């Protein structure tokens, strides 16, 4: 299972693809179990040059019945920095945030290599 993410151009906010638009909460992200659909969405996202920077697909893992990013880096992007629990998306709190926090599973995400270029 995958999701599509990037950073919003105007403010750098981490965003997730949902049906052609972008949402700020990972919990609302569109999930792709079909590789072709995922890649088509990624191609479409890449053409949105004035909306999002460097969109890429990330691998997901199941946690507490919800999906979460497989890699720790992607979970940090979906949550916020660990030294300031009131900064970033995690400040919202709630079940979805908690599920992200509890997710484990740590194999390298497919998103990592692309990130190095940024």
């Amino acid at each position, binding site marked *: 299972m995958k999701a599509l993410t990037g*950073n919003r151009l105007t403010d*750098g906010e981490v965003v997730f693809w949902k049906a052609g638009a972008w949402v700020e909460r990972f919990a609302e992200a569109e999930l792709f179990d079909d590789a072709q659909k995922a890649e088509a969405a990624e191609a479409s996202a890449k053409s949105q040059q004035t909306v999002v920077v460097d969109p890429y697909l990330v691998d997901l893992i199941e946690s507490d019945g919800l999906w979460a990013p497989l890699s720790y880096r992607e979970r940090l992007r979906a949550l916020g920095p660990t030294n300031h629990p009131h900064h*970033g998306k995690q400040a919202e709190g709630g079940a979805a945030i908690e599920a992200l926090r509890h997710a484990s599973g740590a194999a390298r995400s497919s998103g990592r290599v692309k990130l190095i270029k940024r």
Partner: protein
Amino acid sequence: MYQYDTLDKEFLADRAAEFREQVGRRLAGEITEDQFKPIRLMNGLYLQLHAYMLRIAIPYGSLNPTQMRALAAIGRKYDKGYGHFTTRTNLQFHWIKLADTPAILDELAAVDMHAIQTSGNCIRNTTADPYAGATAEEIDDPRVWSEAIRQWSSLHPEFSFLPRKFKIAITAAAKDRTAAKVHDIGLMLRRGRDGTMGFEVIVGGGLGRTPYVGPTIKEFLPVNRLFSYLEAILRVYNRHGRRDNKFKARIKILVAALGAEEFARQVEEEWAKIGPEGDLPDTEIARIRGAFAPVHFDTLVNRSEIFEAAKAADPQFARFARNNLREHKRAGYTIVVISLKAIGETPGDATSEQMEVVADLAERYGQNDIRVTHEQNLVLPHVKLDDTPAVYAALKAAGLATPNVNLISDIIACPGLDYCALANARAIPIAQDIARTFADQDRAELVGELKIKISGCINACGHHHVGHIGILGVDKKGEEFYQLTLGGSGAEDAAVGSMLGPALPAGRVADAVDTLVDVYLRERQEGERFLDTFRRTGVAPFKEAVYADAD
């Protein structure tokens, strides 16, 4: 502080206006991200994990209260009310919006500040001794030369698209507080045998994947020949530095590949062709020197009764005085180091309120002079000993009086995976764990000087290679692991640390450091710092102790 005149101010205003235009073109889709990225990097704007990060230049680590207040205000208005001081004495804001950056640059320009060339493949902030102008040890004020280099390197038309980033550090004292020997160019001011001033020029130091202590390329360069020689170095690098592989593109790779002797020969050859025409006129150096605001010192005696009485009355103040003050060249004065390493806090971070406290203190007690060190602390370089109790009280109330400068909890840590898109692991929680382990100030003083430096990835922004204990975050199958090194130094006795053993999981790092300290305390001889004991015993007793526990 160098006083900007009309020309300097107009330069900043024009650069800010240029960037405003460029941002507009990017937002309108007239330039692609690939074309825009080098432009925004040359204005210090990164795209990180959570938002854009803006790295504001603090040239040679020097600012005045007005500038510090502007940073505090920008942090409040455009960020989350705090900033992070870096190992290159710049300031980073981690929650910036691209769309706000033009306004931020305008506000910075209004107080003679900027973000020019704090990133990108160009000449970066030239750093200098944070005690410049206050220490008796220096043979000249390195800030004068840093400012001259800042101007010469700003929007240099030939050297703005180098193979890779380029960092210069200048020191003028025997004690090196800038890590000059691990810079692309380290300039060490020296007196020649005939009494004239010159630079020992070190080229090709660096950290990262391939750390090097740089070799001396020129033993003595007369100071008035600095700029023609710099031009020669940069030109040789621009032409011959590798451009095929980002990880082999720094000048240190070129120097190592050619060998120091051949590299020096190529520079001399180019230098001869440039000739004195490439130098800055002596009148300009004199003008820059004169444009630094004069510092007025009162004539005082060495001993301050107020200071002595305060120490006797308050053991906490005495501890602060023991650890956080440094000797000043003038009788009755001291250098105050402000620790941004409160136990359990993020190393190098300061809130807007804290910045304002420092600004107020500099204004009231400190000759309007504030410095940033490459160890992520602040300095008030000119404070009367008589005023230190009042300064201490204000710092303490603001959480800025942790008496741990140079001690084990005075840790350098990069932002790491909590913020940085390049990181493999977090650095901040490791620093916090270690600091908490050594929160007992008596124990910290017993241990003495121990420089721990933590990087979240091999790019080494935390300078881990030159830590007495260096800690490098690595990704082992998606988990955060940490590689420890021992015996590095960024001072005049520069050295790259040696590996201790296999990487440790995050939860074991603070314990391992505790074990290392126990070994040191057991083994140490009279007067030895941790670094000295390590250099005498080698890694064996340390490795044995840390990995004997592992099962």
